[in-house]
């Protein structure tokens, strides 16, 4: 590859003493337009779904994140790490990595691209693997893939009904603290809708539904069970 592979014929540019207006100059283009040059080659593999992808629609182009001439990180990224780069627009998400319960992104064992293909995806939310949120999550957490004899309806739908994979201050990256998360749906009778508060915490064996694992100390098979007696996820 040479300069003209991307910047077009350069003779006039050179003859004019380097006039930048006489070559293809990506700095003067909208990012989306600049990307059309890149995808003439980078149109296969993981880039095949770029055109029309969520980022492409928002006028995020190849040159928004990558620098051919002055990269700072791997894959010719403009920042030293993906986390830094993604924080440019997604700072609230990156902040979640600072929560007590988080994925190993801030430790460097995973990156944003471990789960997301920022160049486009067949899945939702630009997820890299699978065709559903669950398939993406269980590509690593295969022990929770099932299918099971007894299934929990929201698990079959999407892991993110209960978990925030970017990090939370709740145990196991749950979107709310137990037992209150479970109580958002389990408005039945007897122990599920009991008011779990400080009096029970200090005076009753019902404290075991507040402390530690909370509901999942008994309903530990909440992702599904293959035990014949497991329909309430106790076994």
């Amino acid at each position, binding site marked *: 590859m040479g300069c003209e592979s991307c910047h077009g014929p350069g003779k006039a540019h050179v003859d004019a003493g380097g006039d930048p207006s006489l070559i293809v100059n990506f700095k003067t*283009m909208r990012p989306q337009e600049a990307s059309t040059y890149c995808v003439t080659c980078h149109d296969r593999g993981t880039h095949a*779904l770029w055109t029309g992808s969520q980022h492409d629609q928002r006028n995020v182009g190849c040159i928004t994140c990558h620098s051919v001439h002055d990269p700072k990180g791997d894959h010719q990224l403009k920042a030293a790490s993906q986390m830094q780069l993604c924080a440019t627009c997604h700072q609230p998400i990156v902040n979640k990595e*600072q929560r007590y319960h988080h994925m190993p992104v801030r430790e460097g064992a995973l990156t944003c691209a471990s789960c997301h293909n920022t160049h486009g995806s067949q899945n939702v939310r630009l997820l890299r693997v699978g065709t559903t949120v669950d398939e993406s999550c269980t590509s690593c957490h295969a022990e929770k893939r099932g299918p099971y004899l007894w299934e929990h309806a929201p698990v079959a739908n999407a892991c993110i009904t209960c978990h925030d994979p970017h990090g939370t201050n709740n145990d196991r990256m749950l979107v709310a603290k137990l037992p209150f998360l479970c109580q958002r749906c389990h408005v039945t009778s007897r122990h599920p809708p009991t008011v779990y508060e400080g*009096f029970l915490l*200090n005076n009753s064996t019902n404290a075991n539904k507040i402390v530690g*694992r909370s509901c999942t100390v008994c309903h530990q098979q909440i992702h599904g069970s293959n035990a014949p007696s497991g*329909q309430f996820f106790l076994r």
Partner: protein
Amino acid sequence: MRPQIAFAVIAVLLVAQAAHAQRPSLQPPPELVPEPRPPAAEAPPAGAPVTFGTIDLGFRGTTTSGNAAAYERYRDLRTGSWSRLTFDKTTDRYLFDAAAQNIGYRDQRFGADYMGGKGWLTGAFESIPLNYSNLTTTPWVEQTPGQLTLDVAARQLVQAGAVVGVPQNAAQLNTPSIYRAIANPLVLESLRQTGAFTGAYEFSRNLTLDGGFASTKREGHQPWGASFAFNVANEVPLAINSRTNDATAGLEWTRPRGMFRVGWWGSFYDNHINELVWDNAFRSTDTSPFDPNGYSNGNGPARGRMAVPPDNMLNAVNAFGMYKLQPRSVVNGAVTFTRMTSNDPLIPWTINPVIQTPAVFAAFPNLVAPPRATAEAKVDGLNAVLNFTARPTRLMGVTARYRYNNHDNKTPLFNGTQYVRFDAVPVATGGFSEQFDIVDNFADVNVNFNVLRYTTLRVGYGFDSFDRAGRSFSNMTDHTIRTSIDTVGNQWVTIRALYEFTDRTGSGFSEDALEDGGSQPGLRFYDEADRTRHRGTLLFDVTPMDTVDVTFSLATGSDTYGGPGHEFGLLDSNIQTYNIGINFYPSNVVNFGANYGRDHFDSNQKSRNANPPPDPQFSDPSRDWMLKNTENVNNFNLYADLPKLARKTTARVTYDLSNSDNAFAHSGPRILSLAAAGQFIPLPNVTNSWHRLAGDVQYFFVPRIGVGVDYWYERFNVRDFNTIDIPGQPGTPRIDYLGEISTGYGNRPYRGHTAFVRLLYVY
């Protein structure tokens, strides 16, 4: 005033002459040992083969206090050696690189990549620990993985009522449980090790074969619930010993105008542990005959048995095509068929021999044996995506997407009408298994208008319809409208703004489906309830001069659940978050910046504390209660990068802070009545704060050889009502609390210091 500001902004956009992409955050990557950064790197001669790399060896020392496992979490920071080696070679024929890090430790990593000729090959070995706790203890003893025993003599004393075993009331908390005395230290940790390679070979310019294989082994222990009754809940260490093998293969055919690809992905999970069997902390013998209230009073079996995650398999075949139309239009689409299966042998209904008797079988004939020997669980998935993007002129473009997903559960129904609760009691109040089928039809159209030189305005509409079996609504449909504006590529300002409104409406509501599960008829599950959603984001980045940029971002969202008859469940959920950051690049000697962010979450939910019908409590509104959950989180980051602190010296310092205040406010008539009876105490807020300081100084004696010194400090404080410590010993887990023998796993404070001294060689 407002029009003047708007005109000023537009003017800035119009007069911009040179375009720069939005600057990335320069906030350094956290918790990583910075790579060697010699002040002046030599440029290789153009066109010559280039070989470079680093040798980064040294010593690391770590001291901790408190919950050290949480400090290390996914790392191995033990005192000892430190290593990082990289090698990179580029010639006109191939590219090769290899790297290794923290060799010999639980988070060691190795990798290599080769690209040249007609293909590429990459290989990696990664080891990721997950450290849960090193403060935990347990009285259970692991005989073999999945088999836990508990001291028989202690259990006999507990059963006889001679000692406190599982505390049953506040008075018993004053006497240590016998299990506390016999508990042994338990390090809860697991290790995930993955070896993988991927590669591709180009048969021709147009035809490429690619494939990969990854094998992941997991070993260790995790905290796990293993209970016998409402008043006998346990947490035990569950052994982890599994392997997942993943393989992929694809064949890709490309032409200048398009491409076509077929692929396969197989994933095979093998759990080497088949069941968990553990002793009861409340009893040493099976209650005989069984006590019909054993599941609530603890008079159950001597031991229990449960299933563990079963072996499973996923196979997916995929076909993908893309074609570039004229002018500037692309159509692409994919079809994927997925099959997931799980067919492990089923464990028996119960391990309790008291229930496995002819007399019990006469009353519960289904319990003689499970209806089938294996799970026979199967789900087929069909996913299709079709995208069309047209940009007929530079002024506008259209993007349309249709997505179909069918999650078809084909597991034969399982008759669990009669089952055994907690291995203690046979009951006939169960039911058949359910097939949660989901069919999702999604369509989305967006039109982009390039209204100004650097600005794109987008309007869009989305339709998402879910048909679901086994839920209270047979269908829910989302209608979404959105608009966004993105001003990007301008030298001085970047603006990204989005507003999205979604209306969700369910149909085919079945009150019977709710009542079959014992739920209040006014309950609506929040993942299917009628809902209105507002979401907005704003990103405003200003670069008034080359040496400064300021970023402000705001995100807000609100979900309000409603609809006919909706009374219970989650009522609303809201989030507001903002960040403001500033970066200075005054010279090549120093860069520094800071970011402050605040996140606010709140939600309201409603419930009713009642016995089931025909008890009038079930429909008594005086037993209603509400919970308002509010969490505020502050984030702060500060960095200073000094690439030329002094001659031959570079330095970098970062400081990060995150703190949270999570409040739980109960209200409603039920709360008032409990309070009047002296039976309500508000839960304290759950708070935490986390601080991290990291510094790196590198001094190069000569351009290629130097030394580095790094220091990390982390401090975490937390107050959480769900974590119980021994009275007077904060930070020391109490395993014997009301109705529970646990491992003591919880959220506890820690401090950690780690220092590195490194010898750096850059070649």
